[in-house]
């Protein structure tokens, strides 16, 4: 039986053990359209957690966690057909290595996914990527010629619209060249489960929930509060100001000194 992932309503990582064998407090449930941030220093257990999801842990990893789809353990056929395709990854180290035109490549990707109108799908990806990227680019550009920001924007738009995987794992989105907020909106709209491993406070606060790691296990889970949402607004404004000043300085204009936001 092929598990139909368009019907995935929840993904659960059951409570396991940390490095000293202490039981985690509770299961972690992920739902489509939700963003979760994983926080904690290097070595605190974020990677083990992510690899438990990716390998569809079955009590067979050092943490003893299990992965449930829609609340039940996948049977061996499902495990077999899903393994290796559950998680799409977006990372800062990734580049386009192919020497192909952007339009042709996105079309090829859409085609490989069996999308009914691959040309239309490719156009949508281009459109969204251009909304995310600071500087516009065209289907005739070669992948290798894109700037860092344009590449990242294209990867995000493509993953949101064309990737089959129900879970998207992001390790940071850099500040330069991509509209982070729009990027997250686009990913959320795609009805995927979004997991961000980050040290960036803006990304962390953009998440609906934060999981904090320590000694190889989940130590706490925090739902974003109303006050934190306000804080996020403030930080975003600061980032905006930062990038306006950067832009002004870059184009030789004196930066405007706006009054500080009242309140």
């Amino acid at each position, binding site marked *: 039986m092929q598990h139909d992932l368009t019907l995935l309503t929840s993904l659960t990582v059951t409570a396991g053990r940390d490095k000293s064998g202490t039981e985690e407090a509770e299961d972690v449930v992920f739902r489509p359209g939700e963003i979760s941030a994983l926080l904690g220093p290097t070595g605190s257990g974020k990677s083990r957690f992510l690899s438990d999801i990716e*390998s569809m842990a079955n009590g067979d990893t050092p943490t003893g966690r299990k992965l449930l789809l829609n609340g039940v353990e996948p049977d061996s056929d499902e495990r*077999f057909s899903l*393994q*290796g395709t559950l998680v799409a990854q977006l990372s800062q180290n*990734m580049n386009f*290595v192919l020497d192909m035109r952007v339009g042709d490549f996105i079309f090829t990707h859409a085609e*490989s996914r069996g999308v009914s109108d691959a040309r239309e799908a490719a156009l949508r990806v281009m459109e969204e990527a251009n909304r995310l990227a600071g500087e516009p680019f065209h289907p005739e550009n070669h992948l290798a010629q894109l700037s860092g920001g344009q590449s990242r924007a294209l990867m995000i738009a493509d993953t949101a619209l064309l*990737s089959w995987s129900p879970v998207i794992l992001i390790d940071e989105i850099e500040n330069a060249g991509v509209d982070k907020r729009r990027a997250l909106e686009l990913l959320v709209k795609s009805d995927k489960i979004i997991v961000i491993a980050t040290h960036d406070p803006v990304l962390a606060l953009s998440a609906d929930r934060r999981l904090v790691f320590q000694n190889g296990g989940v130590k706490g889970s925090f739902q974003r509060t109303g006050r934190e949402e306000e804080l996020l607004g403030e930080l975003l404004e600061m980032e905006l100001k930062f990038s306006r000043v950067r832009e002004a300085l870059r184009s030789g204009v004196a930066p405007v000194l706006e009054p500080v936001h009242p309140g």
Partner: protein
Amino acid sequence: MRLITVAGPPSCGKTSLIIKTCTHLMAGGLSCAVVKFDCLQSQDDVAYTAANIPVSVVLSGGLCPDHYFATNLEEAFAWASGAQCCIIETAGLCNRCSPHIKGLMAVCVIDNLMGIEAPKKIGPMLQMADLIAVTKGDLVSQAEREVYRHRIRQMNRRAVIRQVNGLTGQGCRDLAAIMAEAPSVESVTDMKLRFSMPAAICSYCLSERRIGAKYQKGNVKKASFGKTVCNTI
């Protein structure tokens, strides 16, 4: 003993992946040994030894390492027979030979950087594999990984395909679980290659270096180039 062939183009990540996978196998109580077949030189023994995996590197010199593998498999088997799991690493140089054997687990390793046509070009080493491990996904976009996987699937309908990171070992636990289930055999005598290796018994196989039809003996095949090019200027 479980005997597993791991084949793939040079530098695609075979050794990195085998070391990480063997670490899981050994932690699970299975003893491992590795034989590396290569042509001219190999540093792989240093890496395996550092990971406490018994290793024997043998060099084929002027011969194709896959032919050399077939010629020496019984001996390699005897060398490793104290282990529960023997992995054969070969760098398939010509993309035409394939070391895979009927009745044994066959693994093909390719990396994401080889270009979108690579799965087509690689031939029986990939087409006849039971398990295809794709490395270096950390360096390319999700889109490229997905298109690449699709191309691999077109060339091999039944193999298990896995993304593996040779540097971090991501995905190797899963490979280890699959390899632990590899068939065990008492002997390799009378086993059969899945695909015949190319016949290459011509004078150049025997170290001829001079160019010219008069030096060419044995299994010689002449190509057809079409109509002779005219001087059009």
